[in-house]
């Protein structure tokens, strides 16, 4: 071991393992995470060349996932991050969004039809929401699903070039089904966005089905292992039972039953955004690990003339670059824990019919997703530059981490739009306070605003 780093560890003032347990949520969780890490590390087919295409590792990855009974979403996230180290894989969306959406929004009958085949990978699914000309503004999406009572089918259609579904991971070449978000028309009325399970490719030959125009969108900044795809629907007919109907429903006569809240349709996105908050913490913690360990062994220049070159970690400027980011990494990891716990708690309430906390969860997950990914993204670059020239080498891993983390500022909701969603909730809360209502939860501090006089500061 390098003597500098050895010396750093000899001066411990706290029990590292106890802190690791706190980060994992308990000693048992640490053991479980390490078990999963060992599983990935000991399996030859999983950790290979970083540039290897995603598909070749899939069989081993999936079989091991099932063999070890890794089914908890957080554990799946650990597992994926160890296998792919945030480089993505073609089944990313199948595992992270398709299956959770079925769990959250399918009726028991639909679960019987779709879940087991999806778990067995007969059905490989993705989640198609974003369109070429439309992103986070969901009401602007153009894809239509028109109910035809005569045949008891929905006609799925992409009416314009801008309505072509664009970006979903695994859509290009891997998936044979997609959950498609489309504007529902029935009895001559538009009822807004709803989710539909659309078969894309033949289960046997994997050839695109009639009316399905599908492919990969081409090379990107990173995520080379993922086939982000496009999908054009040309009057594709699907059975009425393929609409996800746990909340909203279309009856055989074409009548529409509203969901308790339109936000229920986007529950999966809230879950993913909650995961992204924690992932921002993980990525920042990786970069801090790299930059701080390197700064402990790197010696450069001199503080006092004639003395040996000090560790660069002793320079105040280096500490100023790295330690606030270290603190931020911890802050984001704890925020990630909080978000997953809150998501699970509120999901339980929603299942009991209590939707009261859902708007706050939506607002917080959107804002924190943006806040943490923006900060982490710029933080990665600070870590890279704090490693001097060697940070530019791919051997540092920092350039790869940057490339793979950058899309999180735009996927699952472009960050500025996310911040404005949070702002909408804040403004609504502010108006409620002005109207004399008492707020609870995260915005309860606004209650005080009403009683406070804003005085301009003397300049």
């Amino acid at each position: 071991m390098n003597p500098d780093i050895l010396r750093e560890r000899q001066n411990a003032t706290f029990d590292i393992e106890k802190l690791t347990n706190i980060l994992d949520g308990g000693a048992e969780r640490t053991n479980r995470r390490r078990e999963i890490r060992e599983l990935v590390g000991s399996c030859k087919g999983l950790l290979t060349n970083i540039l290897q295409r995603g598909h070749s590792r899939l069989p081993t990855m999936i079989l091991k996932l099932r063999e070890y009974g890794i089914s908890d979403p957080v554990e799946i996230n650990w597992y994926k991050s160890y296998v792919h180290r945030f480089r993505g894989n073609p089944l990313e969306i199948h595992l992270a969004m398709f299956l959770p959406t079925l769990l959250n929004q399918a009726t028991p009958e639909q679960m019987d039809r779709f879940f087991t085949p999806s778990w067995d990978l007969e059905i490989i699914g993705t989640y198609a929401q974003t369109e070429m000309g439309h992103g986070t503004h969901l009401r602007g999406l153009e894809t239509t699903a028109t109910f035809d009572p005569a045949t008891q089918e929905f006609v799925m259609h992409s009416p314009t070039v801008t309505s072509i579904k664009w970006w979903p991971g695994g859509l290009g070449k891997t998936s044979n089904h997609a959950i498609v978000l489309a504007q529902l028309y029935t009895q001559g009325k538009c009822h807004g966005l709803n989710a539909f399970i659309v078969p894309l490719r033949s289960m046997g030959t994997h050839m695109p089905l009639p009316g399905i125009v599908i492919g990969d969108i081409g090379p990107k900044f990173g995520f080379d292992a993922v086939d982000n795809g496009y999908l054009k629907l040309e009057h594709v007919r699907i059975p009425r039972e393929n609409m996800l109907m746990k909340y909203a429903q279309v009856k055989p006569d074409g009548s529409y039953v509203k969901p308790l809240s339109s936000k229920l349709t986007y529950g999966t996105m809230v879950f993913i955004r909650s995961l992204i908050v924690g992932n921002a913490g993980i990525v920042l913690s990786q970069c801090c690990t790299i930059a701080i360990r390197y700064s402990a062994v790197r010696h450069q220049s001199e503080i006092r003339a004639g003395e040996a070159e000090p560790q660069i970690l002793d320079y105040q400027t280096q500490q100023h670059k790295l330690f606030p980011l270290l603190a931020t990494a911890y802050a984001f990891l704890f925020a990630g824990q909080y978000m997953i716990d809150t998501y699970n708690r509120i999901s339980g309430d929603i299942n009991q019919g209590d939707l009261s906390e859902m708007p706050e969860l939506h607002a917080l997950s959107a804002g924190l997703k943006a806040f943490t990914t923006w900060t982490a993204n710029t933080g990665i670059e600070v870590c890279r530059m704090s490693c001097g020239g060697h940070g530019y080498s791919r051997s540092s891993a920092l350039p790869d981490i940057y490339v793979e983390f950058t899309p999180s500022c735009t996927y699952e909701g472009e960050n500025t739009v996310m911040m404005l969603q949070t702002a909408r909730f804040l403004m609504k809360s502010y108006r409620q306070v002005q109207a004399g209502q008492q707020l609870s939860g995260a915005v309860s501090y606004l209650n005080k605003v009403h009683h406070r006089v804003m005085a301009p500061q003397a300049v």
Partner: protein
Amino acid sequence: SSQLDLNLNTLVDLYEIRAAMLVELAAQSIQQESARGKCQEDSWNNSTIDLVRASDAHCHYMVLKMFRDKVDQIEDPGVHSVMSTLAHLYAIHGMGNFTGDFLQAGVLTGAQVPSVSKCLKGLLAEVRPSAVLLVDAFDHHDKMLNSVLGRHDGNVYEAMFEWARSSPLNRTEVHESFHKHLKPLQAKL
């Protein structure tokens, strides 16, 4: 006083007041736009910079609050102490970056601004002895981190040399490009 109260709960309160102020300012901006006769949508659009700032402050406050709550739950004195220092650092660093907001909110005075910087420097020095241990606690295994610079054993330079030697360009002592391009060019000059 020109001294800052560094109690973590006080710092959380300051962030709360900053967030409340920015929410209020964003709301006022919308109201002012409406008073000028702008429709609701245009009033909103003309206030979006303030709205994003308000959301950002709200999130900043929430993250700090979650951090404080977590620190409060830690029972081990050693871990509690180092995490408390980090939470302070997170809060003070944010105050340094957004000094204008805190001044505007009236929770920080001009006389106190230098003490934010002084306090930040003190916290950096306090974190220094634990920095490597704090990243060790993240428990990122070398195999997963896949970084020559971030190796757990710190043997960076040896590994970097080994990594360079395994570069595809070093498979042969003389690369084929020399025979194909450089040598013919040299012959022509």
